[in-house]
């Protein structure tokens, strides 16, 4: 299936906040309680629909460990959107947000859409960071905010799709230069590709997307 646009995302944040689980929930619609530590960067993809248009999301899930920080920096520049994730049950992951944001702002293109995500909202009893605090931080830094649970899948779709909507709006407003692929946006092959080729591509994407389209 051909897509109208392709967006590149990265997921960043401290180690253990649930970045890989968010991606797995979004692409495969499943939750894996025990997840191996991400080494470097892992890739995932899914197709979504916004405004009646097929949009392909390519998502790079980065390692949160400090040791990989320099590697993950290489991914900022080419991404159109970033999911900055913290764990609502661990105050320190919230405290580190400023560092992450500085890093991101420094290495990314200025138009990158950043979505702030407080993950593990299912663990209400162990909550250390209030929802209001997350909202305040987002307001202060001009981010979109959402609390999610990779375990129950609450708000996971929304987090990825709202980010895409934001990017899509920016394209409509002409903020993004869509012809520069370094921005992490690509225009789809549209009518140029042969039917067979695009059909097969769609099949591949469909499988990975867990039947979203």
């Amino acid at each position: 299936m051909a897509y109208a646009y392709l967006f590149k995302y990265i997921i960043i944040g401290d180690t253990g906040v649930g970045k890989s689980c968010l991606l797995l929930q979004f692409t495969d619609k499943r939750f894996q309680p025990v997840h191996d530590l991400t080494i470097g960067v892992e890739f995932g993809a899914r197709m979504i629909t916004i405004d009646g248009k097929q949009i392909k999301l390519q998502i790079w899930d980065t390692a949160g460990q400090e040791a990989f920080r320099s590697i993950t920096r290489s991914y900022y520049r080419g991404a159109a959107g970033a999911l900055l994730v913290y764990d609502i049950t661990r105050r320190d992951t919230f405290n580190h947000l400023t560092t992450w944001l500085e890093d991101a702002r420094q290495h990314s293109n200025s138009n990158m859409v950043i979505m702030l995500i407080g993950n593990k909202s299912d663990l209400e009893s162990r909550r250390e960071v209030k929802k209001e605090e997350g909202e305040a931080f987002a307001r202060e830094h001009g981010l979109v905010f959402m609390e999610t649970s990779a375990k129950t899948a609450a708000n996971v779709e929304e987090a990825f799709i709202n980010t895409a909507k934001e990017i899509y709006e920016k394209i409509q407003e002409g903020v993004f230069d869509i012809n520069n692929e370094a921005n992490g946006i690509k225009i789809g092959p549209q009518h140029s590709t042969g039917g067979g080729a695009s059909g097969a591509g769609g099949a591949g994407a469909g499988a990975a997307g867990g039947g979203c389209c």
Partner: protein
Amino acid sequence: MDFLKSGLKTVLGAPEPGHHPSGAETVERLVERVNNSTLLEDRRDACRALKAMSRTYRVEVGAQGMDTLKQVLELDRADSETINHALNTLNNVMSPSQFEEEEENPQVPMNIGEQFTEMFIKDHNNVQLILDLLDEYDFRVRLSAVQLLTSLLTNRPKDMQEIILVKPMGVSKMMDLLSDNREVIRNETLLLLIKLTKGNANIQKIVAFENAFDRLFEIVSSEGFSDGGIIVEDCLLLMLNLLKNNSSNINFFKEGSYIQRMLPMFNTPEENEDAGWSPQKVSNVHCMLHIVRTLVSPCNSVQIVSDCQRILKNAGLLDSLCNILMASGVPADILTETINTVGEVVRGNVGNQEFVGNVMAPSNPPRPAIVVLLMSMVNEKQPFSLRCAVLYCFQCYLYHNEMSQANLVQTLLPSSTDVSNLTSGQLLCGGLFSSDVLSNWFSAVALMHALIDNPIQKEQLLRVLLATNIGSSPVSLLHQCTLLLQQTTKLQSKVALLMLLSQWTARCAGAVTGFLRAPSAVAYLVNQTCSNDHDDNEYLLQGLSAFLLAICIHFNDDSVENYSRESLKQLVVRRVGMETFVAKLSEVSRHELYNKAAKHPQLRAKAPAEVLIDYEFCRLFKVLEKPDGEGGEWRRGSGWGWGRGDGCGAGWGGAALEQYKALIRQQDARLQELVAQLDDMLQQNHALQVALNDSKSSNSLLKDENTLLKAQVSAAHGHSIEAHDKSQYEAKINQLTAEINRLNEILKTTQEEKQKQEVELEKLKNDQDDLLILLSDLDLKVNDYKSRLVSLGEKVEDDNTEVQESNLT
């Protein structure tokens, strides 16, 4: 050189007369000049001179000038010419290759470039310095910086990769250069990226993230795909680096629909067939095939492989590959690699296997491509690597596919009627008993792959009979293999047959029975196992014989009287001894070629002598040999408990377990029997159907003939005796037909007449009735008149009335 000298003069001033400065001295003075000169021009000239000397006096320039040159890179960034000279000088000093100038000079150590590189990159800022220079737009600076980085990466790949990885934007900067519209820079960058990405997954991922595949496909297509020059090859090599052992990138490649973009690479235009393949094209196609194989390599996860296989087929790539397979004029090594590639694209994917199974070769008569390939496999004259590739492809075709396994065995069974067509089964049987030892090996292994995890086919294959000599009764394939095993003197044939028999008899009591019944089979195996020759290959043979013997004991259902499980075990204990037996068994996995084969499904033999053990056999061996293999099959250690009935219950679950196992085995056998019966029935049904069809068609054929003859007869009446005869019959038939017609006619008219008469009869009856009624009326009237007459006193005779009354009744 004159120019150089004059250049040196201007820089250094006129030399003192009578004193010829040594190279080292000159270098020293030049370095000083670069360090101390306030004028940019002087520093630039000195750099140029240093560059000129750096090839001949590499050690001196490197030892004295390194720091100074670094300084130049930092401070004189504004002057691109100076920078360029400095970069070139550094590149010369750290060049991985030896210069012509220093060939005569024994003082220069071989790895001098590497030593200087080590010094240079010790300070990571130096690398950053070069990376920063990539931002310069000046052609020469950019080019020299790229070349210098390439040299550094060549000398110290691992260190450089780690350094560049942690430099923010390090990889990104290089990727940007791939879009440089100056081709020289783009091409040099390709070389740089190939070195950079080699074996480093993190860098590979970043490069892929930076749209490398898009860029590379653009370049490949602009250069004319497989017909393009070495740049195409470079692009493909880089892609290969990015994908090799990198599942994240393979995933990205597949999700990004890049597989579909490979299609035009495999579309080889027809007109090139005559022109032959240029060496460059051969290299390009080789790389392309490698990329495909990287995607579907058996080393990848099953998910990735099956996804890629599906996309490759849907995108039409499998089709293109098969076209190459069947095209003429394809160089042998490309053909070989294509066969391997097709194999891996279909391996374990039923849809793709079916697709390949249906490909027909453009031969006369048309034959299935698989059969044509197998013909090459059992043909001594074909190149060795090609024959290996066909075997691998065929193994992939059979892998996890009960249908294709069954189809192969089916071609050997007596029920298949068409004798004229060459079938894969016949080819393999031919190969099995040919005088070419490689054909023996290939065929035995191919046949063995039809039996893997397929108990039905093991039973089916037992039914195969061979007509060895005219007049003598047919011999079963199993017996023939056993016979051949005893007769052949060639190691490879022996090993191949032992592997085939092991696979066949494993988990198949029927085959064990068949084998034990073969004349002198057991005696041969025991002798082999006992043999005392000291040689790796002999050890292997002894081990394999022991293995087959062990299978015969383990999967024995006691149906052969002399060789029941117990008696076989006694035989082994008596003749070989338990210790020795176990030791011999373990010899198999010690063989060098066993370990080589166990690593990868594809046979990776460089020479015919390395062909000995098959991957799937290794798997069988491992599973059965494992101490706690499935169901605790065989146990090592105390006396090797593979004799299950001996009541030493400690290692085994006791008699109950035994009973259940026996029951299961019985049921299993029963099931297999029934399945075989069903198969037979189906075949019979099929045969009957065929016979029916045959007779139908022959019937219509005869009819046609008949009409034809009729026509001929009427055309040429009485020209020959036969025609005469025919015409006679014909006439008779005509006569008879006419007769029948006539009779029919008569019958018809008679019937019609009869009907008419019936109608008439009816009418008459009616008339008669009417008349009778009339008569009775009249009678009544007469009576009436009579009575009137009587009442009037007249005398009337009664006779008449009575007669009338009797008539009426």
